[in-house]
């Protein structure tokens, strides 16, 4: 069983939130060895999609994790118009929602460079290996450089297996 992260992603998918899995969880899905303690997604930051996101998380006590007092997530059609990112803590784990991924672009672009994976009967979009490499290279943190190296090996292996 894949556990809490899958449960969290399933909540989003079941509420028809438009998102692409990015970051460490996407890297792990491709085969990278690092463990991540949160889920990063790139999602459509339209008010409609953000309200769907809020509905998806309604039973999980979502709070803004970057605020000192862990302010409860309370979006309205008006106040979410200016949002670019959301950094949340939920009962199923930490969820960082980005409207823009460095090295990739906004949600629409992320969808174009994503691929579908199936986990326990659920289908999700994740950033493909090339896009993940670009985004990690752009971040340029030491741990991202390790991920880039691993992704390059995994890409070569996959190309080899498919040829």
């Amino acid at each position: 069983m894949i556990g809490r992260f899958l449960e969290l992603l399933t909540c989003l998918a079941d509420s028809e939130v438009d998102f692409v899995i990015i970051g460490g969880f996407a890297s792990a899905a491709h085969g990278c060895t690092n463990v991540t303690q949160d889920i990063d997604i790139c999602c459509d930051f339209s008010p409609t999609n953000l309200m769907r996101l809020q509905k998806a998380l309604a039973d999980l006590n979502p709070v803004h994790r970057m605020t000192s007092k862990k302010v409860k997530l309370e979006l309205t059609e008006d106040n979410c118009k200016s949002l670019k990112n959301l950094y949340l803590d939920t009962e199923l784990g930490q969820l960082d929602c980005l409207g823009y991924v460095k090295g990739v672009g906004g949600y629409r672009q992320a969808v174009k460079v994503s691929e579908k994976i199936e986990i326990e009967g659920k289908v999700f979009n994740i950033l493909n290996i090339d896009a993940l490499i670009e985004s990690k290279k752009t971040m340029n943190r030491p741990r991202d450089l390790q991920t880039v190296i691993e992704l390059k090996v995994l890409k070569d292996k996959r190309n080899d297996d498919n040829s």
Partner: protein
Amino acid sequence: MPPSSSGLGRWVLIPVTGVRVPLGVFIMTNTNKDQENTSFDEQSRFDELVEHYPYLKEARDYGVDIQMLMDNADRTPAERLRRHQSALNALNMLKGARKL
């Protein structure tokens, strides 16, 4: 102890020899210091792999667990994420461990 060396195992097909190397016979080391102690046989197999996957050497030098990485490569996304969750569960257990 390495996994069993019997059977074909799920491992990379080495194009040079055409032989699929059983997992238990091919143990990667992930540090340069360990490399000094690896057998000639294991080192030459690694060298063959690096010829085929050039970034492997960089990965090894960076300290990546090559065996784990290549094993993950042969798994489905769901299997990889199950492994990932197991590791995360272990990490969370350690966080809650009581110091004696």
